[in-house]
Every structure is written in structure tokens, then in C-alpha cells.
């Protein structure tokens, strides 16, 4: 059930060139500054963008092989993709949104109860909060029984408290699902809290030392500024610390 990707794609200001893999019980966090190509990577995994060259395989199944001209459309990859702006279907209520692509209707109620949105089942999706919409989007994708779960900055538009609650829920979810989960973020505290593996992407390249360099820079800034907290010790502070603030 391993997901492997090795792709290149020409973007307007740089060439994206990455290769990595993610195993079923792991939550891989792709982190990097805004505009680094993180979303493009996840869109290529979902089949919404095509790489210029490279391969994507899942569990021995080829999704993309540019040399052989193979491209499996998103409909056939059976994956979950929670978008940054959680595009729910406005003509359906919360329950119908969750059940939209459910393979088994019985799991809809269970998932909605698990994510604490069952009481909102008859509500219009325009009438619920951002956190509730995001929970609904996660349930909608899980109801499809995905083989891979992709999360593209799912908490970026939420307040710090909701973000923290959802992080805990995702952490719990990771233990229950035995599928590769890829989470894109530019929030370092989110990455360090959630990820089993971290992948730093800068200007379309994997830069393993980038996070370390960033942390050193931040530490030296804090020392100069007289801030005592160091990484991971103060969640409230870290909740607001994002790479884009560099």
C-alpha cells in the first residue's frame, strides 16, 4: 500500500522536481513556504494536474507514467482530498454532502457522530461554521473509503482553537486508518505535531535541511528578541507561527 512519486513539472517561476514515498501507517507532512509547489504535488497525486515527466504508483498500480503515456483520472484513484477551501456542495445538506460519494451508507452516521457533526445533519452547509465545514469535508472523503488521504492546508482558514481540536482528531484518525496520509501545510507547529515524516519543499525541490535552518534562524531571532519559548514547548505561540512569516 505504498505511494511512490517521482515527478517533474515546469511551473511559471521554477521547475518542480521531487521524489518521495509514503507508507500506509504514516502521516507525511509536506512543509514549505507559500508558492513552493506543495499544492501542485498534491494535485498531481490526486490526478488534477499532470506532471511533465515522471511516475506515480500506488501499491504496484501505476497512476502516472509519462513515458508509457499512462494517466489514471482522479475518479479511478479512489482517494480522499480535503481542499484548503473545503468546497462542499451548497445544494445538499450536511448529511447528503457526507453521503455524496459514500460506498456504504451505514458509515455516514458513524463518521458524522465521530466528528461531532451528526446534530447538524439537516443544516444547509452555508449555515455552519468553518470548522464544521471542514469536519464535513473530512467525513465526505472518508465515507468514500479512500486508499490515500490528501489534506491540503485543511486548517489554514480556521481559528487557533478549532485548528488545535481538528489536529487532535486527525491524529486519532491516523491511528484508525491504515492508509498513507499526506498533509500539506506551511504551519511548522502543525507539521511537527502531526507528522511521522516531514518533507521540506522549497522552490520545487526537497530541501532536508531547510526546516533545521529555519528553526535555527527562528531560535536566534527569539533569543535576540528575548523570547524564552523554544520549539514545541508553547503551542499557543506556535499556533500562530507560519513559514510564510519569514
Amino acid at each position, binding site marked *: 500500500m505504498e505511494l511512490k512519486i517521482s515527478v517533474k513539472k515546469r511551473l511559471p517561476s521554477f521547475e518542480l522536481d521531487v521524489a518521495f514515498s509514503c507508507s500506509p501507517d504514516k502521516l507525511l507532512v509536506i512543509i514549505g513556504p507559500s508558492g513552493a509547489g506543495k499544492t501542485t504535488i498534491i494535485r498531481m497525486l*490526486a*490526478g*488534477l494536474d499532470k506532471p511533465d515527466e515522471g511516475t506515480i504508483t500506488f501499491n504496484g498500480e501505476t497512476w502516472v507514467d509519462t513515458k508509457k503515456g499512462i494517466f489514471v*483520472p*482522479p*475518479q479511478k*484513484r*479512489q*482517494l*480522499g*482530498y480535503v*481542499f484548503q*477551501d473545503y*468546497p*462542499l*456542495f*451548497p*445544494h445538499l445538506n450536511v448529511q447528503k454532502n457526507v453521503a*455524496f*460519494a459514500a460506498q456504504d451508507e451505514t458509515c455516514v452516521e458513524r463518521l458524522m457522530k465521530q466528528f461531532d457533526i451528526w446534530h447538524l445533519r439537516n443544516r444547509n452547509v452555508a449555515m455552519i461554521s468553518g470548522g464544521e465545514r471542514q469536519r464535513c469535508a473530512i467525513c*465526505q*472523503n472518508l465515507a*468514500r473509503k479512500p486508499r490515500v488521504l490528501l489534506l491540503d492546508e485543511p486548517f489554514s482558514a480556521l481559528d487557533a482553537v478549532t485548528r488545535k481540536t481538528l489536529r487532535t482528531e486527525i491524529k486519532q484518525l491516523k491511528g484508525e486508518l491504515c492508509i498513507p496520509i499526506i498533509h500539506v501545510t506551511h504551519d511548522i507547529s502543525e507539521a511537527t505535531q502531526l507528522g511521522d515524516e516531514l518533507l521540506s519543499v522549497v522552490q520545487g525541490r526537497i530541501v532536508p535541511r531547510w526546516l533545521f535552518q529555519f528553526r535555527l534562524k527562528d531560535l536566534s531571532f527569539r533569543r535576540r528578541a528575548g523570547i524564552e519559548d523554544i520549539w514545541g514547548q508553547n503551542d499557543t505561540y506556535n499556533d500562530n507561527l507560519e513559514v510564510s512569516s519569514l
Partner: protein
Amino acid sequence: MDWQPLFLSLKLAAVSTFLLIILAAPLAYALSLARFVGKAFLEALINLPMALPPTVLGFYLLVIMGPKGFLGRFWETITGSPLVFTFQGIVIALLIYCLPFAIQPMKAAFEKIDRSMLESAYVLGLSPLATFLRVIIPNSISGLAAAAILVFIHSIGAFGVLLMVGGSIPGETKVVSIAIYEAVESLAYREAGRMCLVLIPISYSFLLLLNLITRRSRAWS
């Protein structure tokens, strides 16, 4: 008052609206999504009936649909009967005449739909056709309704195109606008006045409906 022309107009408007909404929806969707060379030319061509004098459009349709025209010959080969001066003929003429009134509101409604909602549907396993039917159409109801009302109103009021292609055959092509014209020509003002008076509340109520739908759609967005 002879009610037959009015019923014929309503029947013609209903048939044309039904057919045009079905035929124009995929075309409007393709125009809202696709980027291709010459798109501006195609859109201008689709909108041409709106800018042309109806008699000019009617003249060319008469030529194309006549016994020597390609559409007329094709129709005759299949059905064994001519196309011009028939109910089917004026339906086809109206489909072309009203095409821009159907395309414009539908295209505007389709363009408003968030692209990420379509991508979400694809990832959730829906084919492009299923996405169109299960996501696009339900979220464009106001645009579809506006298109249907505009087409219906224009079909009721069409005159020049229908006169050129259909003439004035009672029960077949003599619609209310042509009946009014003929009544005035024969100085039957009372008869013409009655028919005109019946048309006003019909057109007014459809415009009112269009107004309500547009307001509701604005409130939603």
C-alpha cells in the same frame, strides 16, 4: 375571439423552451469551461440572431430549410415531408432565433460555479457527465430558470422569423403575433385588441417570475 393562435403560440413556446434548454445546456457548459482558439468568434456567431433583424435571419432560414436548402432536403429525406410552413419548421427556426437568450444566462450561471467544487466531485469519483448532472445543474437552477423564461417570452413574441419560415397556416403556423398582424391588416381592431390584451398579463407574469428568480439568485450569492 379565436383562441387557436394563442394556444398554438403557447404550445410552440413550450416545445421550443423544453428543447432549447436541453440542447443549449451542454453548449453553454462547454463555452463556460473551454478555452480554445476562435472561442470569441463562435460566441459572436451564437449571439448573431440577437443582433440581426428577424427578417434577415428568417430569410436565410427559409433558404436553408426550403426544398433546395440542405436542411430542407435532409428533413424531406428522413420524414418524406417538407420543413418550411410546418410547425416543426417554426420550432427549428425558433431554436436558432432564441439560442442566445438560452446560452447567456446559463453560461453566466455555470461560470459562477466554484472550480474546486468540480474538482472535488471528480476526486469523489464522479465522471464529467455525472458531475454535470449532480453538481452543475442543481447549482445553476436560477440560471436555467432565467434562460427558460427568456426563451419562452421571446418565443411568444416572435414574429418576423416565424412569418418568413412558417407563413400563416391556421392551426399549423399561425401564431398569435401573426394573427394580430393579420387582424390589423383586415381592420379587425377589436379582435386584434383582445389578443393583445391577453398577451400582456402572460408576458408580465413571466417577467415578474424572472425578476423574483434573479433577486433570489443575488441573495444566495
